[in-house]
C-alpha cells in the first residue's frame, strides 16, 4: 500500500515538476520534462532536410500555389494571383521565422513582460511612452484608406495565421519552448507595429539633448567651433550642381532659441543611441559597364542577428516576378529586382525627431500653454500585462506635440516624431509598386507615396536609366530648427508640414554615370530646404564610393563585388600621414618604431590578416581622446557628445596649433605634434597589455551575429572579419553586411547575392537567373 502511494506520489509529482518552468535565480528554465521529451521538446526542432517541393492547400487561397525550396532553402513562390502570392509569402515567412515575427511585434508594442516577466517592464514602458502603439494605430488608419493595401496586408496576415493554425505545441519553434509560451495570431496592426520598430532603428537619431547641454556649457562661439553643422568637404548623395526643378514651399515655422537645460537633465536614459548602422547603395549606367547594361548594388549594414533581419525569397504571379529580401512582418520584397529593374536602399541621415519643452499651466501638469492658450493634455492608458498574471496601467500624457516623458533624462519634454504620423497616403503600396516596376517613371511614382522610415532609394532599369531618390516624409523646417531642445509653447517652433514629396532630392541619369549613397548628407547647400542630421554618419564611406566609381569603367559584377568588400579607409588616408609626420623627428622605443614602420607601409586597408589596422585604430583612438581631453571633466551624469572625427582631422591639417590640442592638465602648451607622440606612447602600451595578444586586425576585432534573445550557444562569433565602419565593407562588432546584392540588368537579369542567415562562418552565396 505504502509503496503504491509513495511511488505514485513520486511519479505524479515528478511529472508535475517537469511540466513547470523552473526559476533559478534570475533565469527561468523551461519545463524540463517537456523540453527534453523527444516527442514534444527541443529534439523535435532538430531539423533534417525536410523541405521538398510542396503544394499548399488552404480554404483562404483562391487558386493553386506552388512553393519550391532550392538548395539554400530559399522559397520560390508561384501563385495564380497576387492575393495568393502574399498569402504564400506570409505562410513561408511563418514557417521559417514564426518566433521572429512574434517577438518583433511584441517588442515593438511593449509586450515583452507578458511573456518574460517584470524584468522587461521598463523596456515595455519605454516603448509605450515613445508612442509605438499610437504611431502604429495612425499608420494602420492610413493603410485602411486604401483597399489594395489592405488586400495585400490581410492576405499576408492570413498566410501567417494559416501556418500557425496547423501547429501543435510540439511543432512550435524552439524559442517558444525555451520561453514557454504560445505563438499569437498575426494582424495588419502588427505589421504597422513592425514598421514603427524599423522607424526606431532607422529614423530616430538626434542629439537635441546633448547639443543643448553642450551649447550651454561651451557658449555659442565655442560650440560652433567644435560642432559645425556640416563638413565643408562632404561629398553629398545628390551630385553638386544638380538643378532643382520646382518652386520651393516657404517654411512657415520659425526656429526656437535653444532651451537652456536647467531642470537637472541627466545623461540620456531610455533613448540611447542605437547601434551603428551604415549602408551603401549605388548604380552605374551602361556607359560605365563592360556589358553596356546598368549594374545596381545594395549593401545594407544593419545589425547582424539570428534569425537574420532579412528573409530572401522569389515571388511570381501573373502580375509580377521578383526576387530579393523581405522584412518578416511586411509583405513584398524590399530590396531586390524583377525582369526589368532593380532597387535597393540605405538609411537617410536626416533628423526627423525633435524634443519640445512643455510650458505647464498648472502644478498637476494637466494643462499646458500653447500659442497663448491653455490646453488640456490627453491621456493614453497603456495596460502592460506581466507574465506573473499581474498587470499595470501606464498613463502616458499627450500634447499637441506628441507624448511627454514622465521621468528620466527627457522628463517634461514632448516628442515630435515623424513616425507618429500616419502619413497622407498608404505607404504600404510603395514596395508593391517597386516589385512591379518596369521603368524609372514607375519608380518615381512609387516614391511619391512613401512615408517612413525615410530611405535613399537607388533604382536602375533595362532602358539604361539609373536614379537615386530620397523617399519618405521629411520635415519642412525653418533654418536651424530641430537641432536643440526647443520651446514648446509656440507651435510655430515646430514643423507644421513636410517637404512636398515631389521636392525630395532626386538625381536621374547624372552626367557622371553613377548614383550612390552611404548615409551621408543628401545635398549641397543649393537645395532650398533646411537639412539637419548627418552627424550620425561621417562622410568617409560616401566620399570613398564616389571616388572609386568616378574612376572606374568597363565595370563587371566582379568589380562590384570587390568594391563591396573594400576595406579602404579614407579617414586613415587623411590623418595618418600627418600623424607619421608629427613624430618623424622623435626618439622612439623599439616597440613604437615597429608600429611606425608598419604604418609607413600600410595602404589604409582594414584587411583582417594585417596588424597595421590595429596599430592605427589604437593610435587614432588615443589621439581622439587626447584632443578632446577638455571633455574628460564632464561628469557622466550629464548628457554630452564629442566632436566628430572630421573636425579633428580638419583642425590637425589646417590649424595644428589650435588650443584644442593643448592638454588641459599640463602647464605647457602642447601642439598637434606633441599629442600625437603622447598618443603613440599610450597606444604602444595598450597594445603590449592586450590580453590575449592580438597578432592581426582579425584576431583583435570579432563580429558577433547575435541571436535575437541573446541566448548563449545561439549566437555566432566571427573571427577574422575584414573591414571597418569607415570603409565600404562597414563591419563592426555587431553590424555588417546583412544582405548584399549585385544586379546586372542583362537579358535575362543576372544577380549575385549574399545573405547571412545562420551558417557559422561562410555566408551563403548563390546565383539566381530569371
Amino acid at each position, binding site marked *: *500500500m505504502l*509503496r*503504491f502511494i509513495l*511511488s*505514485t506520489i*513520486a*511519479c505524479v509529482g*515528478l*511529472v508535475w515538476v*517537469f*511540466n513547470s518552468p523552473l526559476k533559478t535565480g534570475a533565469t527561468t528554465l523551461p519545463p*524540463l*520534462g*517537456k523540453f*527534453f*521529451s*523527444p*516527442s*514534444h*521538446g*527541443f*529534439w*523535435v*526542432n*532538430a*531539423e*533534417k532536410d525536410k523541405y521538398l517541393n510542396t503544394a499548399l492547400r488552404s480554404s483562404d487561397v483562391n487558386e493553386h500555389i506552388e512553393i519550391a525550396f532550392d538548395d539554400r532553402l530559399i522559397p520560390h513562390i508561384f501563385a495564380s494571383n497576387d492575393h495568393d502570392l502574399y498569402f504564400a509569402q506570409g505562410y513561408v515567412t511563418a514557417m521559417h521565422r514564426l518566433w521572429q515575427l512574434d517577438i518583433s511585434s511584441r517588442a515593438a508594442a511593449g509586450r515583452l513582460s507578458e511573456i518574460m516577466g517584470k524584468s522587461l517592464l521598463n523596456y515595455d514602458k519605454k516603448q509605450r511612452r515613445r508612442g509605438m502603439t499610437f504611431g502604429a494605430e495612425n499608420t494602420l488608419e492610413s493603410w485602411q484608406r486604401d483597399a489594395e493595401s489592405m488586400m495585400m496586408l490581410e492576405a499576408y496576415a492570413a498566410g501567417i495565421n494559416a501556418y500557425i493554425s496547423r501547429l501543435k505545441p*510540439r511543432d512550435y519553434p*524552439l524559442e517558444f519552448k*525555451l520561453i514557454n509560451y504560445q505563438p499569437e495570431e498575426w494582424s495588419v496592426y502588427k505589421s504597422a507595429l513592425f514598421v514603427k520598430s524599423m522607424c526606431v532603428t532607422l529614423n530616430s537619431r538626434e542629439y537635441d539633448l546633448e547639443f543643448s547641454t553642450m551649447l550651454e556649457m561651451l557658449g555659442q562661439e565655442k560650440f560652433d567651433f567644435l560642432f559645425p553643422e556640416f563638413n565643408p568637404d562632404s561629398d553629398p548623395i545628390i551630385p553638386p550642381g544638380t538643378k532643382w526643378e520646382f518652386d520651393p514651399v516657404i517654411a512657415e515655422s520659425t526656429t526656437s532659441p535653444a532651451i537652456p537645460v536647467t531642470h537637472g537633465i541627466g545623461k540620456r536614459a531610455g533613448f540611447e543611441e542605437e547601434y551603428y548602422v551604415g549602408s551603401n547603395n549605388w548604380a552605374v549606367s551602361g556607359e560605365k559597364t563592360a556589358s553596356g547594361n546598368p549594374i545596381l548594388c545594395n549593401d545594407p549594414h544593419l545589425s547582424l542577428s539570428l534569425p537574420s533581419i532579412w528573409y530572401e525569397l522569389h515571388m511570381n504571379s501573373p502580375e509580377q516576378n521578383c526576387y530579393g529580401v523581405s522584412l518578416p512582418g511586411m509583405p513584398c520584397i524590399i530590396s531586390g529586382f524583377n525582369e526589368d529593374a532593380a532597387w535597393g536602399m540605405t538609411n537617410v541621415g536626416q533628423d526627423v525627431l525633435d524634443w519640445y519643452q512643455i510650458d505647464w499651466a498648472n502644478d498637476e501638469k494637466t494643462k499646458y500653454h500653447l500659442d497663448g492658450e491653455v490646453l488640456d493634455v490627453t491621456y493614453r492608458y497603456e495596460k502592460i500585462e506581466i507574465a506573473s498574471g499581474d498587470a499595470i496601467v501606464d498613463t502616458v500624457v499627450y500634447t499637441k506635440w506628441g507624448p511627454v516623458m514622465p521621468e528620466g533624462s527627457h522628463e517634461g519634454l514632448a516628442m515630435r516624431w515623424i513616425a507618429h504620423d500616419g502619413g497622407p497616403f498608404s505607404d504600404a503600396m510603395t514596395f508593391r509598386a517597386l516589385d512591379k516596376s518596369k521603368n524609372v517613371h514607375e519608380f518615381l511614382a512609387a516614391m511619391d507615396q512613401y512615408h517612413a522610415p525615410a530611405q535613399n532609394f537607388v533604382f536602375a532599369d533595362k532602358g539604361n536609366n539609373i536614379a537615386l531618390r530620397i523617399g519618405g516624409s521629411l520635415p519642412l523646417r525653418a533654418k536651424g530648427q530641430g537641432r536643440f531642445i526647443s520651446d514648446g509653447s509656440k507651435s510655430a517652433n515646430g514643423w507644421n508640414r513636410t517637404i512636398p514629396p515631389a521636392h525630395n532630392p532626386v538625381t536621374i541619369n547624372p552626367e557622371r554615370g553613377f548614383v550612390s549613397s552611404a548615409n551621408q548628407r543628401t545635398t549641397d547647400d543649393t537645395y532650398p530646404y533646411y537639412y539637419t542630421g548627418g552627424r550620425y554618419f561621417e562622410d568617409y564611406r560616401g566620399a570613398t564610393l564616389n571616388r572609386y566609381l568616378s574612376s572606374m569603367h568597363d565595370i563587371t559584377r566582379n568589380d562590384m563585388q570587390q568594391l563591396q568588400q573594400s576595406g579602404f579607409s579614407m579617414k586613415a588616408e587623411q590623418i595618418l600621414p600627418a600623424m607619421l609626420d608629427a613624430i618623424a623627428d622623435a626618439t622612439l622605443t623599439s616597440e613604437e618604431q615597429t608600429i611606425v614602420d608598419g604604418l609607413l607601409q600600410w595602404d589604409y586597408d582594414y584587411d583582417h590578416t594585417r596588424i597595421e589596422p590595429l596599430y592605427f585604430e589604437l593610435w587614432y583612438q588615443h589621439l581622439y581622446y587626447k584632443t578632446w581631453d577638455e571633455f574628460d571633466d564632464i561628469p557622466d551624469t550629464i548628457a554630452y557628445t564629442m566632436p566628430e572625427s572630421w573636425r579633428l582631422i580638419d583642425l590637425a591639417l589646417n590649424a595644428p596649433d589650435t588650443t584644442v590640442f593643448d592638454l588641459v592638465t599640463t602647464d605647457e602648451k602642447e601642439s598637434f605634434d606633441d599629442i600625437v607622440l603622447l598618443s603613440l606612447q599610450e597606444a604602444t602600451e595598450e597594445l603590449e597589455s592586450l590580453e590575449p595578444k592580438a597578432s592581426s586586425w582579425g584576431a583583435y576585432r570579432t563580429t558577433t551575429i547575435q541571436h535575437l534573445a541573446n*541566448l*548563449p*550557444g*545561439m549566437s555566432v562569433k566571427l573571427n577574422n572579419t575584414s573591414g571597418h565602419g569607415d570603409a565600404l565593407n562597414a563591419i563592426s562588432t555587431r553590424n555588417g553586411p546583412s544582405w548584399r546584392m549585385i544586379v546586372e540588368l542583362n537579358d535575362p537579369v543576372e544577380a549575385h547575392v549574399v545573405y547571412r542567415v545562420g551558417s557559422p562562418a561562410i555566408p551563403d552565396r548563390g546565383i539566381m537567373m530569371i
Partner: protein
Amino acid sequence: MKLILTLITIGILSYFAQSLGPWWTGVPVAFLVAAIVQLKPGTAFLAGFIGLGLAWGVAAGIADFENSGILSARIGEMLGGLPGWSLVPVTALFGAVLGGLGALSGASGMKLIIDK
C-alpha cells in the same frame, strides 16, 4: 525474459503513444503495461526504467544523428556548457526515471488489488 518483453513493450508502445498524447504519455503506458504484466515491483521499476529510457534515448539519438548534432551542441552550451552528445543520455535518464516510477506504481497498484 518477462522483464525483457515488458520493457520492449513499454518502449515501443510509448514511442508511438507519446506522438499522439502529451509529453508524459509514456508514464501511463509504463503504468498500465507493468500492471497488466504483474511484475514484481523491483522488476517493474527496471522494465519501466529501461523501456522508457530507451524509447526517449533512441528517439533523441536518431534526432541528433539526423541533425548532425547541430542543435544539441547549442542547447548544451545554453545549459552551461554541456557537450551536445550528452543530451542524449540526459534525455534517456529523464525518460528512465519517469518510466521506472510509472511502472513501479502500476505494479504496486496491481499487487494491492491482487493481494486483496
